[in-house]
């Protein structure tokens, strides 16, 4: 790993900026992601900052089973995220389709469309689980691993 990449990795691990994208979720995981960023749980203590545009972010937090309508948009947004990028699937339906599995307009999970680095199960994923998922993901980014 060259010096520049190590620097990026280090920065990404110390302060990953996330983009929250709803890919057809029921809003439950989305409000839990926001709740994780607010004072009680405060994900920001790990340097995690919510950003509004894919061009600024390192990690995409996607919730929802991916509807057919959003599929092409998800790919486009994923392509706009600069490398190195990671995707976190938040919630059961983002992981495997969950309760929506088998409905005519949904895929079964984010990994059917884009590569996923971490899965956080739960319907909805609780803030504790989200923090745990992010902490584990950030640990894998440690330089030298």
């Amino acid at each position, binding site marked *: 790993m060259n010096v520049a990449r190590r620097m990026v990795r280090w920065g990404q691990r110390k302060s990953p900026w996330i983009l929250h994208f709803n890919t057809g979720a029921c*809003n439950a995981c989305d*409000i839990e992601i926001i709740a994780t960023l607010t004072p009680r749980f405060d994900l920001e203590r790990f340097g995690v900052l919510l950003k509004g545009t894919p061009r600024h972010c390192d990690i995409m937090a996607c919730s929802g089973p991916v*509807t057919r309508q959003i599929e092409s948009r998800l790919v486009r947004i994923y392509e706009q995220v600069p490398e190195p990028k990671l995707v976190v699937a938040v919630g059961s339906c983002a992981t495997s389709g969950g*309760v929506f599995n088998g409905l005519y307009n949904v895929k079964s999970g984010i990994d059917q469309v884009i590569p996923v680095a971490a899965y956080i199960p739960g319907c909805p994923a609780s803030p504790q689980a989200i923090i745990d998922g992010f902490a584990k993901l950030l640990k894998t980014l440690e330089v030298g691993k």
Partner: protein
Amino acid sequence: MPDKERIVRVPIGPQHPALKEPESFMVDLQGEKISAVTLRLGYNHRGIEKGCEERTYVQDVYLVERVCGICSHSHSTAFVQAVEEIAGLELPHRAAYIRTLIAELERVHSHLLWLGVAGHEIGFDTLLMYTWRDREQVMDLFAELTGNRVNYGINTVGGVRRDISPEQLPRILKVVDALEERTKYYIELAMTEETLAQRLSGVGKLSKEDAVLLGAVGPTARASGVDRDTRRDDPYAAYGELEFQVVTDDRCDVFGRAVVRLGELMQTYSMIRQLVRQMPEGPITVKAPLRIPAGEAVSRYEAPRGEDVHYVKANGTDKPERVKIRAPTLANTQSVAKMLEDGYLADLPIVVAAIDPCFSCTDRMIAVKTREDARTMGWEELVQYGVRWYRERGVDVSKIKMRGDSTA
């Protein structure tokens, strides 16, 4: 030289920093002013209604709950109410109280959530952090009473799944007391904070006539002076035994909608106290048949965002033949286009947020089949047809008067 008449079309969404859900707006701009808005919905359409037909009633309760995570109890209650009506089940008194209690706690969490989001949209992130911190107390209560923070899964056909123990009742009151203090602070803030009033006043105007005409529901309609609330007009669960006032406002703007929601919060606290005090003893479920007899029912429910309507048609099997969901946001989206007209582009996020939109509720689909004998009906003809249809079934629609609607 810039042309003042030139219209610039700005696409907003489906991914947008201000709006957490995927929906897209095509905004036609003349300078800073919005001249027309086209909405494009459906990014969240999952096919729940069709899915309901393929699953049993018991499974459907949980599927319908996931129409929307914020007002999940609304959808599951509206659905089970319809099923109970078809099956002719008498809901136990205590179950009705527990359902209503969860419904009102949900209203607290939803309105506090909205207040924070509204603060966020106008760049007042402190308010977001404050309200979401306070909201965690309700979430803790949900976790304790139902076992989950969101998507409570407490409803079942014929009652509720969990009882509330006597030790839990004082804890509910304690949270209500604490939140009432905080809400009083927010009301004071809204009334005295100059920046908040100036930012929200006169933004997103919707006159009473337009609110009635466009079929606005919930706090959006009540903030335009339309005195309509399903909890009072068509009481369900335990609402018939509670004393409360329907909060309305004549400001007709975003500020009015904030005032209505804050007022509703105070009413809700008083309702929760009444529910806890009057909580009857008894069973929490009645035995429901797996196969629901053939029939159909429409169920109304006042969700935090407005009136939620569920239609269920049963055919005697353990699966419904048709489930139709009309979520409150669908009724309100029409009015958003009206509110945005002649407004400024910078007001768009807060005006959209002011109806407390929930697009995962809204994204339903209707397939229109063209038949050979199909024809187009005009409005007058359609009204006449409707009146005739009901009269044949013994209902005289012309006698039904809406309360508070002078224009209707």
